[in-house]
Structures are given as structure tokens and as C-alpha cells.
């Protein structure tokens, strides 16, 4: 009764709309066509069920009414309310206490503040919200705001459905932004792969992407080429399936056990007897100290258990288990094959072909990415080792506390950041600070300890180790054991993306550049400056150098300080990349020494080569077994030990009598 009345009312409202709307804008929104449409679907909207809501959403979306988009937006945002008295829908801007500020959908005019108790909120669940959002895509694709168009494309790429394809295609031509236009075109091709109506259309779309590196392309193609393993009676697979390949049980791809498991899972063959089942059956049938005719105490032998179970089967107490010959027969009577989920053969062929072309390119690019990774690892090792290249390589001093100088540099960076909150500025301040701190520490250490031990290298090793454990514990006492953050400035965040496969973070680029700068600095210092000349003179023959007016004490002190200072700067760089803890330096010390030794002591190019070799080697080993970086490090060290067999003096070795003893 009520329904008929309402329908009649609505008809009336629709026919009288223009007139009434003009004369009385408020409070009679019922006449507006959008309201009529809503009323038409009132029941489904009120019911709010994900299963039945689609026609209502579609009707609004396709109505062509200017307010349709507004309705969908407000509905999806749970801002649509319904008047209890007459069932009309409004949207609400603001809920102030017990009052609602109501607006009319048709012309967005304010209706006024009305008590909340007269209205009911329409609460679409998240499923419905998703559907609404999807239907909004159509509007958003031609939204004047480019950001919203971009967001709509994102939504489509994530949860797009066949229904949106026409809307997407329609919006391409009118797209003014060239970047968005190309995205739309790409998405259209991708969606055509999935939802295209004819195979030809889809194959064309698939071929379009030959050699494309995008993750999205592989995401679209992989489901097409995904296979499921099946078994079927007979010797040929069923005609209606798109068979990728037929497998022979016992072959490399399919063992006999797996094949039989497939049959069991498909219900095509009886289950095998598992050890647990056999045991359970034997236990269940223990009778007066024996089971299946075998004494319980003898059942610790698999053969005895088989005999006992056979006894149970004969007595009818247990189901017969599949025997070897039965399994053979079952395997022979079935065919095993992989099928594509996609039924159309030409589509799967095209997809496989395109994927192959992509894989080749991906492989090349992955090697490139790996090389970039290795290069950045190499620059980190080089940074960590360059200070050592000076103290160990040039001066011949083993400084086990070198790692702790790196740590001190990193902590200096952290402290500076606590004082200066601006990350860029603090980084600029931190680098000279770190240099100053570790330079001072290095000079102090050289003056107090190392200079007394120049003739006793092994004891230098031990004394500096003592300093190393003291410094490490000191850092723990001051800064605690948890990792301290050393935050990089915003312009170092993120990464340079070359394509979907190759990318490198800016911080790694910065470290690489820093390594190059240090290399240049070192070369300049050693070859072009007075200090470099004096250092080389002192390290080669301290007495001779002293007699020529060089003060070896001063030169040693400065050189050692310099090596330590560079370690401090390296510490800031490494701190940006890794966590700052008191063990930071210890993690690098062995690798740093390796770098110098492998490269050849006393030669900066050797250190560079050593770092490159170790970096590439480690990444290369990691590539074979990506889940296990520990194993990669282990194998790398073993490799280095073997490498030293063949070049005991490193890659670049000094020859002749100068290298002797």
C-alpha cells in the first residue's frame, strides 16, 4: 500500500519537477531527478548489501545527471543521510551536537540545521565503499584536477575491472596532460590484456609490451602463464584444457611420489599408508601383547610392522594400503600435465613469448643493478679502508682501533645532529667536526702509544686492540647499547629510479662520490704536497729523512692523524647508511684490513682494486644465494684466503729488493 503511494508521489514529483524546483527551491528537493533516482533504488540503498548494491551504483553512475558524482562521493564518505519521515536523501557537511547541517543533492543548496534524531545515516560497508570508489573512477578520470586523475589511475591499476575499460578508453583522447595520457594509454593496454573482449585484441596488447621492464607488465602477464598441475585418466589430457606441457612421472619435473600424491589429491587413487597411520592402526589393534600376529615388543623394526599390518589387513581390521604394483598401475593409467588458467592457447603463447623477451632484458638490467649495488658496497669498503691505506699501507702501523675511529666519526655526526636540528646544515658541520675529533684522537694515540712501538708491529696490533675495546666500551657507556639514528637530509632520501629493475639510492651515490673525492684527495696529498713527500721519505728511510731536515716525529703524527681523520669522515658517511652503534667500527675492521691486504699494501690503487674486488665478489656470491648474506661473507673470506695464496702481496705488489723482508 505504502509502496504504491510512494511510487505515485514520485511520478508526480518527476513530472512537476522543473516548475516546483523553480518556485520553491527549499524545502522540497523531492522533485529533483537525482532524488527520484535515489528513491527508485531506495530499498537497495537502505539494505546496504554488497551483493545487491551494484545496480543502484550503476544507475547513478550512468544517469548522466550532474549531481551523480556528488551523490557517489558523499555516499562513499558516509555523509549521505535519509530523512526518517519521507525517506528523502540529503548530504551533511557538519554534525554539530544534535543538529545536522543538511544540503540538497540537486543544487548543493543548504537546507538548514535540523535535529539529528529525524535522520538516519546511510553507512555503506567497506565492500560497498570500494564499489562506489570504483564507479567514481569514471568521473575522476576526467576530473579537472590532474592529481585526482592520477589517483584514479592508481585505483584502476590496483583494482580495475572490465567495466572500467570503456570509461578509461573514452577518457584518453580528451586527456590534456601528456604524462597522464601516456599512463592512461599504458593502463588501457594492460587492462586490455586482462579484460579485452577478443583474443586478437588481447594478443595485440600483449605483443605491445615486448621487452618492457615494468613490474606491472609482468604482473599482468604472469597470471596468464601461471600453470596448475593436474592429472586425468587416460593417456591424453582433456580437450577443453589449455595444456602447457605433459609430464612423465619419474621424470625430472615430476617424481613418482609427487605424481601419486597428485592422484590422491584429485581422488583418483587410494591413499598410501603413512608411517603414522600404520602405527595408529597397529596401536588400535593391540590384543594380548601382539598386533596383527606380531609381538608388540618386536614392532621396533619397520619390516615387522609391515608384516603386522599385513596381518591386520588379512583379518579385515585395517584397510588395504596401496601396494607398489597398484601405484605403478595408477600412474600408468593417468596422464599428468600442467594447464594454463587462461583457456585461449594463442593468448598464452603470446604471453610466454613476450615474457621471454622481457626476461632477457630483465636479466641484463638485473646484472646492471647488481653491478651498481656492488659498486656502492665497494665504495663503502673503500671509504672504510682508505684511512687504513694511510696508517697501515703507508706507515705500516696496524691500527686495530681504526674501526673505533669510524665509530667516533659516526657518533660525532649524531651529536652534531642533536645540537643542530637542520639535517643539511648539521651534515655540513658534522664532517669537519668528525675529522677534527678523530684527527685529535689519532694524534693523541700516535703520541702516547704508537710511536713507542714502531719497531714492534705485532705489539702495536695488541696495544691498539686494547684501545679499541676501551673505546668501544666507552661509547657503550656514553651512548647506550641501542642504535642511534643519524638521519640523512631529505635530498639524500629516496632513490634514483632508472627503470623498474635498476635503481640506486641517492645516499649510495653520495658515498660513491665521497669515495672518489677521497681518492683524489689522497693522490693529491701523497704526490703533490710537501707532507706527502715527507711522509714517503719518512716511511722509506726515517734516519735519512731526519738527516735531511725532516722531523719524522711530526710527519708520523700528522700522517697518522690524517688517516684517523679520514676514518672519522667515513664514519659520518657510513653512519648515514647503517645504524650507529658501538660495534659499527668492529663490523668493518676485518674487511678493511682485507681490502688493504688484497689490494697490495702501500698502494692506493691497490686499495681501490681490493675494495672493488671484495664488493663485487660479495654481491656476486649474494646473487647466487640471496637469502643468506652470512654465507656470502663466509665464502668471500674463504675466497680471499685462497686468493692470497696466488698473490701473497696483493693485486698490486711491490717487486724486488724493496719488497723483501
Amino acid at each position, binding site marked *: 500500500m505504502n509502496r504504491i503511494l510512494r511510487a505515485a508521489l514520485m511520478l508526480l514529483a518527476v513530472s512537476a519537477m522543473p516548475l516546483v524546483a523553480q518556485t520553491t527551491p527549499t524545502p522540497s528537493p523531492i522533485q529533483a531527478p537525482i532524488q527520484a533516482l535515489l528513491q527508485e533504488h531506495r530499498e537497495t540503498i537502505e539494505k546496504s548489501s554488497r551483493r545487491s548494491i551494484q545496480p543502484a551504483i550503476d544507475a547513478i553512475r550512468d544517469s548522466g545527471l550532474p549531481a551523480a558524482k556528488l551523490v557517489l562521493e558523499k555516499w562513499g564518505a558516509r555523509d549521505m543521510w535519509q530523512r526518517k519521515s519521507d525517506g528523502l536523501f540529503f548530504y551533511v557537511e557538519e554534525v554539530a551536537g544534535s543538529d545536522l547541517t543538511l544540503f540538497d543533492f540537486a543544487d548543493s543548496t543548504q537546507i538548514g540545521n535540523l535535529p539529528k534524531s529525524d535522520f538516519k545515516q546511510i553507512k555503506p560497508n567497506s565492500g560497498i565503499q570500494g564499489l562506489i570508489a570504483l564507479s567514481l573512477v569514471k568521473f575522476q578520470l576526467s576530473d579537472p584536477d590532474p592529481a585526482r586523475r592520477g589517483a584514479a589511475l592508481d585505483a584502476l591499476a590496483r583494482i580495475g575491472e572490465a567495466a572500467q575499460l570503456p570509461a578509461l578508453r573514452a577518457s584518453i583522447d580528451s586527456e590534456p596532460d601528456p604524462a597522464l595520457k601516456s599512463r592512461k594509454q599504458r593502463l588501457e593496454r594492460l587492462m586490455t590484456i586482462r579484460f579485452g573482449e577478443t583474443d586478437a585484441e588481447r594478443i595485440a596488447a600483449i605483443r605491445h609490451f615486448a621487452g618492457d621492464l615494468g613490474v606491472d607488465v609482468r604482473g599482468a602477464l604472469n597470471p596468464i602463464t601461471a600453470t596448475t598441475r593436474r592429472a586425468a585418466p587416460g593417456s591424453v589430457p582433456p580437450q577443453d584444457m589449455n595444456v602447457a606441457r605433459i609430464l612423465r612421472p619419474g621424470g625430472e619435473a615430476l617424481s613418482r611420489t609427487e605424481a601419486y600424491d597428485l592422484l590422491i589429491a584429485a581422488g583418483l587413487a587410494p591413499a598410501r599408508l603413512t*608411517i603414522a597411520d600404520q*602405527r595408529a592402526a*597397529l*596401536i588400535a589393534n*593391540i590384543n594380548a601383547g601382539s*598386533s596383527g600376529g606380531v609381538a*608388540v*615388543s618386536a*614392532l*621396533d*623394526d*619397520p619390516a615387522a*610392522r609391515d608384516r603386522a599390518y599385513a596381518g591386520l589387513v588379512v583379518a579385515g581390521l585395517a584397510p588395504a594400503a596401496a601396494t607398489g604394483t597398484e601405484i605403478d598401475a595408477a600412474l600408468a593409467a593417468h596422464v599428468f600435465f600442467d594447464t594454463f588458467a587462461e583457456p585461449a592457447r594463442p593468448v598464452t603463447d603470446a604471453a610466454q613469448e613476450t615474457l621471454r623477451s622481457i626476461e632477457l632484458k630483465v636479466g641484463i638490467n638485473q646484472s646492471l643493478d647488481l653491478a651498481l649495488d656492488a659498486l656502492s658496497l665497494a665504495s663503502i669498503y673503500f671509504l672504510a679502508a682508505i684511512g687504513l691505506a694511510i696508517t697501515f699501507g703507508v706507515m705500516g702501523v*696496524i691500527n*686495530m682501533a681504526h674501526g673505533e675511529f669510524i665509530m667516533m666519526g659516526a657518533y660525532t655526526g649524531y651529536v652534531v645532529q642533536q645540537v643542530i636540528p637542520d639535517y643539511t646544515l648539521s651534515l655540513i658541520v658534522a664532517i669537519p667536526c668528525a675529522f677534527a675529533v678523530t684527527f685529535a684522537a689519532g694524534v693523541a694515540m700516535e703520541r702516547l*702509544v704508537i710511536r*713507542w*712501538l714502531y719497531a*714492534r*708491529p*705485532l*705489539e702495536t*696490533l*695488541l*696495544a691498539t*686492540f*686494547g*684501545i*679499541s*675495546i*676501551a*673505546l*668501544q*666500551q*666507552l661509547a*657503550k*657507556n656514553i651512548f647506550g647499547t641501542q642504535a642511534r639514528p643519524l638521519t640523512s637530509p631529505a635530498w639524500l632520501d629516496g632513490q634514483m629510479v632508472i627503470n623498474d629493475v635498476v635503481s640506486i639510492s641517492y645516499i649510495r651515490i653520495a658515498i660513491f662520490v665521497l669515495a672518489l673525492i677521497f681518492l683524489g684527495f689522497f693522490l693529491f696529498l701523497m704526490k703533490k704536497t710537501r707532507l706527502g713527500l715527507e711522509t714517503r721519505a719518512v716511511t722509506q728511510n726515517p734516519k735519512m729523512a731526519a738527516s735531511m731536515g725532516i722531523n719524522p716525529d711530526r710527519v708520523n703524527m700528522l700522517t697518522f692523524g690524517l688517516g684517523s681523520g679520514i676514518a672519522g669522515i667515513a664514519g659520518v658517511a657510513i653512519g648515514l647508511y647503517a645504524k650507529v652503534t658501538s660495534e659499527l667500527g*668492529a663490523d668493518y675492521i*676485518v674487511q678493511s*684490513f*682485507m681490502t688493504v*691486504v688484497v689490494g697490495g699494501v702501500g698502494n692506493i690503487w691497490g686499495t681501490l682494486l681490493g675494495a672493488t674486488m671484495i664488493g663485487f665478489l660479495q654481491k656476486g656470491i649474494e646473487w647466487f644465494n640471496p637469502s*643468506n648474506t*652470512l*654465507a656470502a*661473507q*663466509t665464502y668471500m*673470506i*674463504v675466497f*680471499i*684466503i*685462497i686468493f*692470497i*695464496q*696466488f698473490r*701473497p702481496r696483493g693485486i698490486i705488489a711491490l717487486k724486488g729488493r724493496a719488497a723483501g*723482508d
Partner: protein
Amino acid sequence: MRQSFIFRNPSLLIFLACLAGFTLAITLLSHAYGSAFISTSFVKTLGKTLCLCLVAIAMDLVWGYCGILSLGHFAFFGLGGYMIGMWLMYARTELIIVQSLANAPIPATPQELRDAIGTQIFGVVGSADFPAIWMFAHSFWAQMALVVLVPGLLALVFGWLAFRSRVTGVYLSILTQAMTLALSLYLFQNESGLRGNNGLSGLQNLPGVTASQDFISIWFLWASALALGLGYLLAAWVVSGKFGSVVRGIRDDEARVRFLGYSVEGYKLFIFTLTAIIAAIAGALYYPQAGIINPGEVAPIASIYLAVWVAIGGRGRLYGAVIGAALVSLVSTWFTGGLVPSIRLGFYTIDWVDWWLVLLGLSFVLVTLFAPKGIGGLVDLIAGRLVPNRHGADYGPDTGSLQESEGRE
């Protein structure tokens, strides 16, 4: 003219007497056999210290006598511990499993037994299968042989590679350190088959022994003392005589020894492998007393500490290594155990648990700088006062009077 080996080394007798007296005293003060004056955990600490003294002797042989600063001997120590730990863990788990399966309605097959043990041991690393390296874990004797064979072979192969390529001095030290790092990183992986960073645990329980820890700890103390005594004797015998001369010659001038016709590499390899085996035996006695072993024990820093002990005690003399290891490890236990009262400075309280490593590091620097002979150097000072070293000169004014060498007898 020819005297017996022991009488030519008077310090040996003193050492053995001290060791025997110490063992007897601890036994009489223990819960198990005496007045219960010392707690069982302290007996274990002392037993462990004896093992550390033994590995320090090994270190002294290889570094103090042969001049190879090996930063890898604690890795051999740890490997010995792992080898014995495998048997202890397997045998004990087997007992527990057999006991729990005894109540099952039907007896277990060998395969079921093995699977149950595997699940029990390797459950923590998400596996139930026995890795191949556990092949001999069920056999006590096989595993005991592995205690010696595995570290011995590793030392032999590594030493052969390193010495053959004439890597010496600090390069060799770095290389041994790298070996230790590689080994500890390898053990840290779950795939190593030795329970990754969980290590092996429950080693203090001897399978099939029902005696309480009070007794077990004393037995291990005896075993450790015996091993230390024998190790000391062996080391003293090795370095006496011509072999010792050659080895010390290698330390002082390797090339000269080579031109005398001795194959330096062979000697180094011999010493390196022998000491690795001694270290492994010490480890095999240490870890059942510690109860647990994990890859952290094998980390490079442990081997450096070993060098620190020997340096503090005084290298190139066996008792120096023993004194250093015992002193530093006991003092370290004392400090890190929170037994030393904190120092209140008003604005800051020095808590020795935190500051002990700083103190140790700095005192180590001081010893290196000012007392390169270590604590053993004190013995020289005292002995020098008692019997001045006259370098073969006469004791008296007359020619034909007593020579120093005769005066010593």
C-alpha cells in the same frame, strides 16, 4: 752431563706441584668431597679457568715461541667445544626421547627414534633432519676423535695454505682473524647444521650420569687439571732441546733458519696444528662446564683476548701464559660479576660492570708499553736477584772455580 728432562726445567716441577696442591685444596673445599666451603658454580669457574690456562699455553707455544700471532686459536677451542657438544646433546636427547617413548604402546623404530631426536634438537631452527655433520654424533668415540681431527685438519689445511705462500707477521695475524670471522659467520647460519645462533646447550648434563652437578663439577676440575698438567709437560718438552731452538730461531730470524736447511713451513705447520689440537682439547673440557656454546664464542675478539692474556702473563715462557690467563679471566669474572663495589664520584658512579672493559683495555696498553715481558718479567727480576746471571763467568776469583752452570744444579 745429560740430565733428565724434568730436572733441566725446575719451573716445571714447581708448576706441577702448585697445580696438584690447588686441585687438592679445591677438592677438599668443595661440596662433593669436602667442607662445602666453595660453591659449585665457583668450582666450575675454576675448572673453566684451568681450561683457559691450557689454551693460553697453546697460544704461548705458537706466538711466544714460534712468533706466529695467531688470532684464530679460540676458533679451534670453540670447534673442540662444538664437537664434544654434539655428542653430549645427542646422547642426552636420545636418553630423554627413549624414556618418553618407553610409555608408547608399541616400541619405536630406529627411524622414529632418530626423527624424534632430530625434532627435539633442530626444532629451534625449524628443521627436523639431521645434517650430514651429525653423522657420528651418536658415537662417543667417533666424536672424541673428531674433537682432535676437525680442528687439527682445519689448522693443517689453513696453515699449509698460509705458510706455503710465506705470509708472515701482521699479514698472517689478519689472515687468521679472517679465518676466525669466516668460521663464526658460518656457524651463525642456521644452515650450518649446528643450530645457528642458538648454539648447543644443556652440555653440563653428562648422559647416563645421575650424580649431581656438585660431583660433576669436581670431576671436570680434575680432568681439566690433568689436561693442563699434561699439556704443560708436553709444551715444555717440545720447546726444550733442538726443536725448541729451531722454533725460537724461526721467531727471531726466519730466513736464517731456512738457510740452515730447516723447512720453516714444516715447523710452523707442526706447531700450528699441535697447538690447535691442544686448544681443541681445552675447549672440549671447557664447554661441558660452561653448559652452552654458541657462535659468539668463536668470534674474532675471543682470540684477541687470548693474545691479551698471554701478553699480560708474559709470552715466551709457559708459566707466564698460565698466570696471564688465570689472572685476567678470574679478575674479569670478579669485575663483570658485579662483585666489585662501585665508586661514587658524586656527579657520576663508576659501575665496574660497565667500566671493566675500559680498565682492561687501558691496562693492556700500559702492559704493552711498559712491561713487554708481562707479569713473567717479575720472575726474572726476582730470579736475577737470587742467582745473578753471570753468563758463564766464574763465581769466584780463581780460574777453575765453580761455573754458573754448575752452581745452578
